[in-house]
């Protein structure tokens, strides 16, 4: 049913979209990040033969197996202990499970991330949409945002401890800070890059302001917001580990620093790192599933 002219017209659209993306670093990186997710969606498509899916999963698993073997062999041939072997790391994880610490630390870290992240989303997204909507407000806010942006959330650690003491609140605050600005910027940019024609169409059909926000503005920004949400969740997970090394005494970050301080248990250190990696991956997979919702997918679907 595709007619001639289709390809040409849509290419132009894609390029336009990418040109808009290029304006901002955040969105530019996210556009790059989107490539693998696109291929993922394609390959895992339900109507593909499942044998193919199996191979797709098998390849990385086999590669990880090879890496682990090399790691195991290389370390066991050395007399100097540079790193614990994979077997020792597994032993470390088993140790944690035995002492009931694994679940406790994972839950503690996830708890802080959830609070800091959700708080940031709830505040930054509506605020960003409002700022982006009005050019004047945006002009007022922009300098402040640009000054705050290069400050690493970790630079706030002393202040967080001063305000909240050593504890969950300080860690949540740091995660909130780490997520807030990237989300705010994503939301601002998302609103500003809505094609004016969508707003015009909404007004033409007689939408009142509330409806315009709900039926045009919101759906138009969703794809970009999802990209921002995904990047920011990654940031939250980075920040929680750093915050836990200093501001609290539980969680995966604490595990790493504590295992070293309390007797050079490097098997536990690496165990903590592995857990952080795996949970980070799972979080990303979880939020990526949003990209597969059909009505959200329009901005990725022209490849």
């Amino acid at each position, binding site marked *: 049913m595709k007619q001639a002219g289709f390809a*040409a017209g849509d290419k132009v659209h894609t390029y336009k979209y990418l040109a808009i993306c290029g304006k901002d670093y955040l969105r530019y990186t996210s556009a790059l990040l989107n490539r693998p997710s696109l291929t993922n969606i394609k390959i895992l498509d339900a109507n593909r033969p499942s044998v193919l899916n199996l191979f797709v999963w098998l390849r990385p698993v086999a590669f990880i197996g090879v890496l682990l073997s090399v790691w195991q062999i290389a370390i066991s041939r050395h007399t100097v202990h540079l790193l614990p072997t994979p077997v020792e790391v597994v032993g470390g994880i088993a140790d944690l499970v035995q002492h009931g610490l694994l679940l406790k630390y994972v839950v503690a870290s996830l708890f802080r991330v959830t609070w800091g992240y959700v708080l940031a989303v709830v505040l930054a997204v509506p605020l960003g949409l409002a700022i982006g909507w009005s050019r004047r407000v945006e002009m007022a806010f922009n300098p402040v945002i640009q000054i705050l942006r290069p400050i690493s959330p970790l630079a706030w650690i002393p202040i967080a401890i001063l305000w909240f003491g050593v504890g969950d609140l300080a860690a949540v605050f740091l995660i909130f800070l780490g997520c807030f600005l990237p989300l705010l910027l994503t939301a601002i940019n998302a609103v500003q890059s809505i094609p004016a024609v969508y707003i015009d169409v909404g007004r033409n*059909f*007689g939408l009142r302001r509330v409806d315009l926000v709900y039926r045009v503005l919101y759906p138009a920004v969703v794809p970009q917001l999802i990209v921002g949400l995904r990047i920011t969740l990654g940031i939250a997970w980075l920040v929680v580990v750093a915050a836990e090394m200093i501001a609290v005494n539980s969680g995966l970050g604490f595990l790493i620093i504590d295992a070293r301080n309390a007797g050079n248990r490097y098997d536990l250190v690496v165990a903590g790192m592995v857990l952080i990696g795996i949970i980070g991956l799972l979080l990303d997979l979880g939020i990526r599933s949003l990209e597969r919702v059909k009505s959200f997918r329009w901005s990725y679907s022209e490849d």
Partner: protein
Amino acid sequence: MEPFVTPAAVDTKLRVEHVNIVFDRDGKSTPVLNDISLEVGDGEFVCLLGPSGCGKSTLLSTMAGFLSPTSGEIKIDGEAVRGPDPRRIFVFQERGVFPWLTVEGNIGFGLFKLPRAERERRIAYYVKMVGLEGFERTYPPELSGGMKQRLEVARALAVNPDMLFLDEPFGALDSITRLIMRGELLRIWEAERKTVIFVTHDIDEAVQLADRVVVMSARPATIQQIVNIDIPHPRDISSPRYLELRDGIFKQIGLAHKL
């Protein structure tokens, strides 16, 4: 076949009175429209024809209420235009369809005030009218350019407006699809008798479609001439009268017939 209606025989739908538009940007003011006056009859099909950048879109946006004239006034049904209105829908070159809504969702976009059953009936009717059956649940990125264009026209028609503003609606289509779309637009227009203001820079397109062609000059645009196209539809585009009218406009615009 409907006989040709002269504008004198029907009520005036739209009246453009001495409209001037000057854009101020970066301290530089650009006059775009220069004393435009025009009357369009109810149910008439009028083409605005002029070179790119002359101000056709500006004039059309002003008629639709998206822009206010610097001076002068636009009246529809005797009332001054104060803003966009669902009784008159602007159709953008296929870019106006919402990619996050299905074909059904797009056609139903303006029908939010109707009860559900009536909304669904209208959606089904216009899906059929523009030949998108089988694509009701399809999202626009999976449609061709021509289909998106028809979808946008269907969304406009679904709210039963009495005017349609079309800004080079077929400009981005290939020439074959464009010819088909012209035919379909005429079919729809003959069925629904909306007042249509159609912007184009394509002389053939204007002469094939319009009851009257408003020929505009380069910027700042003035109306150079208004040409009555007194050929009934379907038009034979090799008939002497067609060629005579078309060549007359070519001459008016100052283009030689041979390249």
